[in-house]
């Protein structure tokens, strides 16, 4: 009597079965064989044994320099992206540009930049400026430009209109409205986001070296290829420590800027 209709009761198991079927098909299609898996696991165990203890050998100075490069790439790339994204994001915000026809291309443009992974941008820039950290800076700058454009425009759309109207009422020009009505509201939010991105870009910057765009990823990929496992584990440890340190500093700064209330 209290039973739900059969169709509703069967929907959940049917979905689970379908999901599992796709999963199993995937395992088969992607060449998962138990013997290969076990073989790989024993290899992996062997590799982890080789990693202990982490040891930089004699290349510690090189690694420190590479880490510095990575941090530089993250900082510069994010700053460049933020500087270029701010004016563009104004054009993507509903309350600044009411016309949908004008907004639409800007948004799709930002979306397509965002749809391309940072690593792919890195490959493109390597073709333009050659191997090295500069290509990394440009790659991060471009791919973050897309992300920032979207986030900034959302922050601008969330801003309070009353202050803008106040400026307009006192006879301010549209530029005044943006400068005195909008920016003071939006800047702390934007600063918080930029800091957060510097943090997450430290992570991305560690990997763009894998395709040759400078930084610690380059060293990491090289050491993995020549099977110097002790150096690999040392490099991974370095990355972990660096990311933790940046996390700590930037969250302190973020709270200093946006106040402790806005925990995002």
């Amino acid at each position, binding site marked *: 009597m209290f039973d739900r209709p059969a169709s509703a009761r069967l929907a959940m198991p049917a979905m689970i079965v379908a999901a599992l079927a796709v999963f199993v098909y995937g395992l088969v299609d992607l060449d998962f064989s138990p013997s290969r898996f076990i073989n790989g696991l024993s290899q992996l165990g062997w590799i982890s044994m080789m990693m202990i203890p982490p040891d930089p050998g004699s290349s510690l100075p090189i690694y420190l320099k590479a880490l510095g490069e990575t*941090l530089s790439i993250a900082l510069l790339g994010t700053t460049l992206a933020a500087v270029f994204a701010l004016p563009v994001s104004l054009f993507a915000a509903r309350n600044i540009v009411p016309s949908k026809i004008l907004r639409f291309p800007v948004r799709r443009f930002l979306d397509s930049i965002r749809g*391309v992974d940072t690593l792919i941008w890195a490959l*493109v820039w390597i073709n333009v*400026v050659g191997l090295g950290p500069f290509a990394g800076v440009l790659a991060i700058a471009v791919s973050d430009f897309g992300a920032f454009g979207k986030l900034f425009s959302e922050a601008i759309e969330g801003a309070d209109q009353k202050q803008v109207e106040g400026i307009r009422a006192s006879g301010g020009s549209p530029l005044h409205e943006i400068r005195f009505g909008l920016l003071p509201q939006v800047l702390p939010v934007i600063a918080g986001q930029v800091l957060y991105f510097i943090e997450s870009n430290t992570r991305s910057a*560690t990997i763009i070296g894998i395709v040759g765009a400078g930084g610690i990823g380059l060293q990491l990929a090289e050491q993995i290829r020549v099977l110097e496992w002790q150096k690999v584990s040392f490099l991974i440890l370095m990355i972990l420590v660096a990311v933790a340190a940046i996390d700590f500093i930037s969250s302190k700064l973020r709270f200093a800027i946006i106040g402790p209330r806005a925990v995002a």
Partner: protein
Amino acid sequence: MTIAVSILPEQQLAALNAAYGQAVARRRWRLLFGAAVFAAALLLAAVGAEVNLRTLFTYFGNFVSYFDRIFTLDTGQRAWTDAGEWFWGWRKWLKMLGETLLISYVGTLTGAVFAFALNFFAAENTSPAPWLRFVVRRLLEFARTVPGIVFALIFVIAFGLGPMAGVLAIAIHSTGALGKLFSEIVENADMKPAEGIRSTGASWLSCMRFAIVPQVTAGYASYALLRFEINVREASVMGFVGAGGIGQELVVAIRKFYYSDVSAILLTIIVTVFMIDIATGWLRGRLFGKGART
């Protein structure tokens, strides 16, 4: 109605003015100091990253012309004038794309299952023992801080070239990321049902099964879908290190300067990512109502 404006004596006013001036000056100095530190850091970073504006300006034409080149066919025509020629390899690319999607699906599902198993140990309110919580949390942290592609590089050596390495790398990274999010959902769950079940003498396992899980499944599924979206992007570059998927084709096309192929594959990836974004967004909306995307 009259408004009384009290005019302070000269002396008092001067003191207040000075205090105000000081406060403003202090703020300005702090801002200036911050800006100076930031500028110095940027300058240092510019040296560290070997920024060379001359190279940029000399070769910036290359960047623009690169896009010109990738949209030009070998025959010299614009790519979109001859779609058949442009997407000549679509059969192969679609197959690789399917592989990419499968990699991210299997990886996400595996990661979600592991995250599901681990997150109860990582949450403040359900963890059976503090030491266990500490261990599990550090484990999850490790799994999500090491970039997925680094895991992929190592797995390619352990498991051989191919999509298996990509799947495992994505699974580990997803375990770390989802485990954290899942445990945060559990921490927000209502503990009264759990107490009720515990009071009947049930074990920890049944408390989780009958009190916590029913509350959190919707949130879990929502985050897992979001993760799938991110993993499709991630899987599209896994091929760069030999871990399967469409990235392999792309990196070959870029390295060998098959220009029109680059644009064709890139477009395929972008369109797929869009479609996945839209599809999962729609699914999330259907399953959990609006505002599920946080």
